[in-house]
């Protein structure tokens, strides 16, 4: 294995840095060489065309943002006939993120993607903007198992289940996904939130609620990632608030085998290739030969004094 190579099941990534779904598209060929990335994760596509939510679709916060974009989608046929051919010239594995309104539709879509030359399907069961009042499949163990299980029987492609930080017991959801045949866990999607402009008294997002992302989400998503790593044996991909190489190190140390970078690309469009270079420099500076040597190496906190039971 090369210095930065990592594996997500049978999928070999040249490096552990990939875009988070929804923050990346073919447009980025104008910014950097897409083969610098570990994988190309596309914006979520639904089987049929979807409009998306009203504007304003984003709002900024101290240290992050919210979006209520809501998966505008040109549908499965457009993906297969128009989008995927544009990515054929890149050697980085292509991961298609999918969503649908029922487990049956998820499965039918997965079946259709079999043989399209993609490396994996990311199963977006956790978008807070698409389901009624923020309810998502990934908040329920049975719904998660139903979607993943039906998709497992419909396709031979690797399935990456993208979970929600809003799940009250994300470890149980991760186990349900693993038990139903998921090949990897992506932890996590955005967290449902809300903002009001106190001067105008108006909601700041057209769809009222939206998904929180950016550096302010990182502690929540890192915690969720760690809980998933402890719960399952399949690989976990960390996602949430990554904006520096130190952030990547944190995710790798708690056991993520790869990471996704999303919101940070809005502020620095070429941040992903920069982080790949910085990760290589950091590994070398620490005398490490593979990124593998860093994964899951987190240790207990510094303070180890055992406190008296009663004070």
């Amino acid at each position, binding site marked *: 294995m090369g210095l930065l190579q990592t594996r997500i099941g049978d999928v070999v990534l040249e490096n552990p840095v990939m875009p988070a779904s929804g*923050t990346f598209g073919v447009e980025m060929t104008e910014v950097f060489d897409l083969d610098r990335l570990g994988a190309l994760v596309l914006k979520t596509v639904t089987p049929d065309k979807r409009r998306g939510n009203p504007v304003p679709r*984003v709002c900024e916060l101290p*240290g992050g943002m919210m979006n209520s*974009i809501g998966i505008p989608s040109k549908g499965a046929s457009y993906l297969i006939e128009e989008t995927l051919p544009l990515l054929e010239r890149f050697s980085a594995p292509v991961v298609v993120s999918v969503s649908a309104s029922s487990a049956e539709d998820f499965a039918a879509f997965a079946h259709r993607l079999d043989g399209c030359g993609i490396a994996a399907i990311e199963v977006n069961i956790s978008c807070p903007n698409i389901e009624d009042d923020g309810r998502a499949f990934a908040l329920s163990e049975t719904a998660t198992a139903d979607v993943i299980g039906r998709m497992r029987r419909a396709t031979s492609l690797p399935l990456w289940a993208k979970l929600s930080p809003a799940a009250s017991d994300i470890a149980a959801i991760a186990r349900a996904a693993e038990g139903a045949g998921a090949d990897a866990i992506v932890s996590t999607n955005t967290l449902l939130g809300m903002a009001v402009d106190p001067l105008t008294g108006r909601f700041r997002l057209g769809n009222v609620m939206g998904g929180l992302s950016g550096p302010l989400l990182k502690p929540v998503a890192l915690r969720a990632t760690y809980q998933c790593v402890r719960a399952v044996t399949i690989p976990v991909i960390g996602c949430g608030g990554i904006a520096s190489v130190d952030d990547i190190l944190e995710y790798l140390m708690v056991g993520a085998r790869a990471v996704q970078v999303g919101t940070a*690309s*809005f*502020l620095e469009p070429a941040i992903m290739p920069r982080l790949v270079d910085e990760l290589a420099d950091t590994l070398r500076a620490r005398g490490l030969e593979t990124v593998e040597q860093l994964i899951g190496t987190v240790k207990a906190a510094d303070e180890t004094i055992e406190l008296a039971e009663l004070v």
Partner: protein
Amino acid sequence: MDLVAANIVQESNSDFPIRQAQLPVLENRPVNSEYRQLTVAADAAMTACVPGQFFHLRCPVRDGVAPFFRRPMSIYGFDRQKGTLSFLYKLAGTGTRALAGLSSGDFLDVVGPLGQGFSAAPGCRHALIVARGVGLATLAPLAEALVRQSIRVTAICSARTPDVLMSVDLFRAWGVEVITVTDDAGTSSVESLEALIAGLVEIDGVDRFYTCGSTRLLRLLQRLGERFAIGGEVALEQQMACGFGACQSCVRPFYRNGAAVNLRVCHEGPVFDLQEVL
């Protein structure tokens, strides 16, 4: 410079035309009580832009905080010989107030050039620019480019009061015929402008419209464009997150290829055909 030549320069620029750089601030001065002009030093790749395109500016930290998003800002001027790029902005919110704190010797973090600029206008003999407020900033480099192509240009500059009228001297220095209208003088209403513009078409041979910065002016020019069969373009504004087409935040509805479609102001625009805008 002309629009077509500028496009060719941009295409030959590099495989990755969208770049990020920290550009030295040369000047950041008030233009009037509400507007400021920010000028930075820029290399050939950054000035390989066309009128109507924009840059995404990172607002500096002010009072310990910086706005999270970048701010899209249309190009007010660029000079490839001198290596300068300038922006005209109105002090409005946290982003522009933070920009106002920059001074000579500081650096401005920019991403760009972004979006589709104004297209070439073959056969155009007399262009009319109608703009209000900061919309004038977007149309200024267009006016200069049109004049250099020996196209006659008339500009209707609209503002609330005479003291915040902008770019009038600049436009006149380039040879643009300027008509000023203000709310104070009661000359900026849609009715007054409609009669004024109809006269410019019928008597002075205006054969192309350009506008930016006002929905009322856009609707007026759409109506007059249909009435006189005159084409044109509009530069639109919309809140953005990424600025390069990935996030789908800045969509607006347009009529294109026989159907209503949502297009990204940052990527398919910010310049659109006048009649496409719904």
